[in-house]
């Protein structure tokens, strides 16, 4: 207990705001109950038991336990904010945690009487055993006590002075992140031949105890040193030009890492990052349609399919291959055909607005998928058997470092950069402004002289061409194309990347692809819950960060401008007639 809590007992008049009534315990109870609902949900939906199989720190804690404990500690931290004194905060946190834990205890008790499995498959004996540390009903009190302790602890940490709390929280968070990405981080150590180091820090899919302690220590020491030296303050004190200069080496290092990444990571991860790079490329493409022009296109996969099948037909060495030409000859045609399809499909529907456009384009995606698998096109496209044996874009011997998905990674990276450059150039010019104006208010945009059909169609065709490019590269990555690859989730993934990342923002899309494509690929445990997390991420974004993870400069400016604008304008009473047009 810290000094101020001892000096200021509950309800004491020495408090800062004595007129205010003390902590509202109904709020605390509400937070606890919400926490309880979340905890029970995590258990019954299967997240806790499934994640329990994944060791975060070998022999110490599993991912499932982290999820469970997190659902207890977080209500504690929230409850603590409602309290005024430190002592009340800790009591409130403990109480909220207790209610959350109590809900889990209740789950165990109910589960011992009624067989919940009839309804919830995951309410298995293993779940109860995990929740009660193997004691069964006799240990039903355990979650409640865990909740009490964790809630109080979280509340207490929240009340620590910043220079202690910040390193502590960051250290714990670092253990979680490093533990989650253990496989990814271990790969470069192994490929560099540092087996001893790898074994010291990591088990197969988690951290060793030594590893966890080391990570925690490094982060805490690093943070404390940073605070001592005051890096942030020093950077902030630099003139703007100097700060700009500091960014150049940082960006150079980042680009360097991106370039050598597949060499460090080994084959499995190369496949993952190739897919991420491909989605980044497609995200950039859709960004023109959705992010700039505001056309909610959910038929992205239609043009993706055109691109992929074009490459298949042009290059395949197997049954349905027609021309047997190299990938690079097929690629421009893939984009061209996708663009033509975009024009044909776009013309009739682009006068439809907003949500209706989304539904119409959604239909296109489905039509193309069904057509691709239909008997009608069977002689041409191979129906459900698809087109196989599509050669890799770059023909190298299998021993080369470019042999596998690595080349796809680089190809996607290069084209991604091209598309990003294109979007960036266009955004700054007449066309890009017209797109954004249409996104903002298409009636007014037309009334100031923007030809809606032409301008929207250009955005749609460019988006379609880049979808075709994505499909072509996808065909090269997988080496085959089936109707089952042409599914709605391609469209939804790409749209989600653009929305979650931040509409119109290049770095936002990269982050969006990492979160939504990379992470689910890395964590096989997450696979079943992928769309649950998607939904949660999208709802969370809309509620708390509608501008995206990394919003475009305009969207960010909107957030910051409010701080400066009133001051500037207050002193300005320029009459409207002043400053005439000489």
């Amino acid at each position, binding site marked *: 207990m810290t000094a101020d809590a001892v000096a200021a007992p509950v309800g004491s008049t020495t408090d800062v705001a004595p007129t205010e009534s003390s902590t509202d315990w109904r709020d605390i109870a509400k937070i606890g109950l919400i926490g309880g609902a979340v905890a029970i949900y995590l258990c019954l939906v299967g997240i806790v038991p499934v994640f329990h199989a994944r060791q975060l720190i070998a022999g110490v804690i599993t991912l499932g336990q982290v999820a469970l404990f997190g659902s207890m500690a977080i209500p504690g931290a929230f409850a603590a904010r409602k309290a005024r004194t430190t002592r009340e905060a800790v009591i409130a946190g403990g109480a909220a945690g207790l209610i959350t834990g109590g809900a889990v205890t209740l789950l165990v008790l109910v589960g011992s009487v009624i067989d919940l499995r009839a309804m919830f498959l995951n309410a298995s004996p293993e779940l109860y055993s995990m929740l009660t540390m193997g004691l069964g009903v006799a240990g039903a009190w355990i979650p409640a006590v865990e909740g009490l302790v964790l809630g109080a602890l979280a509340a207490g940490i929240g009340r620590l002075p910043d220079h202690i709390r910040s390193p502590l929280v960051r250290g714990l968070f670092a253990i979680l992140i490093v533990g989650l990405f253990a496989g990814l981080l271990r790969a470069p150590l192994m490929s560099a031949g540092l087996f001893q180091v790898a074994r010291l820090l990591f088990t197969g899919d988690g951290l060793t105890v030594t590893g966890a302690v080391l990570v925690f220590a490094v982060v805490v020491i690093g943070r404390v040193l940073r605070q001592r030296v005051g890096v942030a303050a020093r950077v902030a004190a630099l003139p703007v030009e100097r700060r700009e200069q500091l960014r150049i080496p940082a960006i150079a290092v980042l680009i360097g890492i991106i370039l050598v990444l597949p060499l460090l990571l080994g084959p499995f991860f190369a496949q993952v990052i190739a897919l991420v790079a491909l989605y980044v490329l497609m995200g950039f493409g859709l960004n023109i349609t959705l992010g700039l022009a505001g056309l909610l296109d959910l038929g992205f996969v239609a043009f993706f399919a055109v691109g992929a099948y074009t490459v298949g037909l042009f290059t395949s060495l197997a049954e349905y291959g027609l021309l047997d030409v190299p990938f690079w000859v097929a690629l421009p045609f893939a984009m061209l055909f996708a663009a033509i399809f975009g024009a044909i499909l776009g013309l009739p529907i682009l006068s439809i607005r907003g949500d209706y456009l989304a539904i119409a384009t959604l239909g296109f995606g489905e039509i193309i998928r069904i057509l691709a698998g239909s008997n009608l096109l069977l002689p041409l496209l191979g129906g459900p058997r698809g087109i196989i044996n599509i050669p890799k874009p770059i023909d190298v011997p299998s021993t080369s470092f470019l042999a596998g998905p690595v080349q796809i990674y680089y190809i996607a990276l290069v084209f991604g950069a091209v598309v990003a450059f*294109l979007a960036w150039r*266009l955004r700054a010019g007449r066309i890009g402004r*017209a797109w954004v104006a249409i996104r903002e208010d298409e009636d007014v945009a037309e009334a100031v002289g923007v030809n809606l059909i032409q301008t929207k169609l250009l955005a749609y065709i460019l988006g379609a061409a880049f979808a075709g490019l994505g499909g072509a590269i996808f065909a090269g990555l997988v080496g085959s194309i089936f109707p089952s690859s042409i599914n709605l989730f391609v469209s939804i993934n790409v749209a989600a990347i653009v929305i979650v990342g931040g509409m119109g923002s290049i770095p936002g899309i990269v982050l969006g692809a990492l979160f939504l494509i990379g992470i689910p690929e890395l964590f096989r445990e997450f696979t079943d819950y992928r769309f649950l997390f998607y939904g949660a991420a999208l709802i969370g974004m809309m509620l708390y960060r509608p501008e995206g993870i990394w919003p475009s400069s*305009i969207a960010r400016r909107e957030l910051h*401008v409010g701080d400066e*604008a009133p001051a*500037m304008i207050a002193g300005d009473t320029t009459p409207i007639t002043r400053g005439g047009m000489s």
Partner: protein
Amino acid sequence: MTLLVTRAVTKRFGGLLAVNKLDFEVDQGAIVSVIGPNGAGKTTFFNCIAGFYSITAGEIELDGQPIHKLRRDQIAHLGVSRTYQNIRLFANMTAMENILVGQHHHLKSTWIGTVLGTRSVKDDEKRAQEEAGRLLRYVGLRGKGDLLASKLPYGDQRRLEIARALANKPRLLLLDEPTAGMNPAETSQLTEFIRNLRDELGITILLIEHEMRVVMGISERITVLDYGEKIAEGNPAEIQSNPRVIEAYLGRGGAADLGIAAGGASAAGVTNPGDPGAPTV
């Protein structure tokens, strides 16, 4: 010379006759106001001219060319710009960008040229930026070009909307209640400003306005609508003394109000509102 002519323009929404057989003319270089009680069809009439609504019957000609079958952007290209009763800026674009969008059809950059960054595109863009900066200063928004339109105070937003309309280099500017929500000082500034637009830039101005001080002060001709029909037309003095106008506008017995509101603004002075037989043209 006549710039804008409408002949028997009719706009019907289902059973509602919003504009009924309206004949109307605007001379080149004039400032003309359309007034009328709420719901008289003034904004509907504006929307018909600017191509927001397709008219049910009749003809609209700009400088002899029929425009009632054209799209909004085509009408804009012919030199018709407008502002809106409830300000409609591109909220998430900067003030500068709003004006640049207004210049859209005066710029020639193609998308390929923009991507390649050709010389002509760069020159085009540079000229556009200079022009936009000039317009910003002209409407009194110097130094506010980088602010988002939505972050500007109300009065500035009105000015920006006018600047955006001017960016199209209009021959005819439609202003839909430009002084709505402004205090008396701002209103008289804006009135002066509108007069300057005509005097300095030669833009013909068609105005919907409720503020009688503005209408009577700057209009050369006034058309009065009620229930979608033209009930009077004339110069301010004639309108003020027209008994049909007074009745439609203020109801019987409200005549004195119009006289007071317009007092001093009209060079012709105020005729007795009850005076019958005033000319209606």
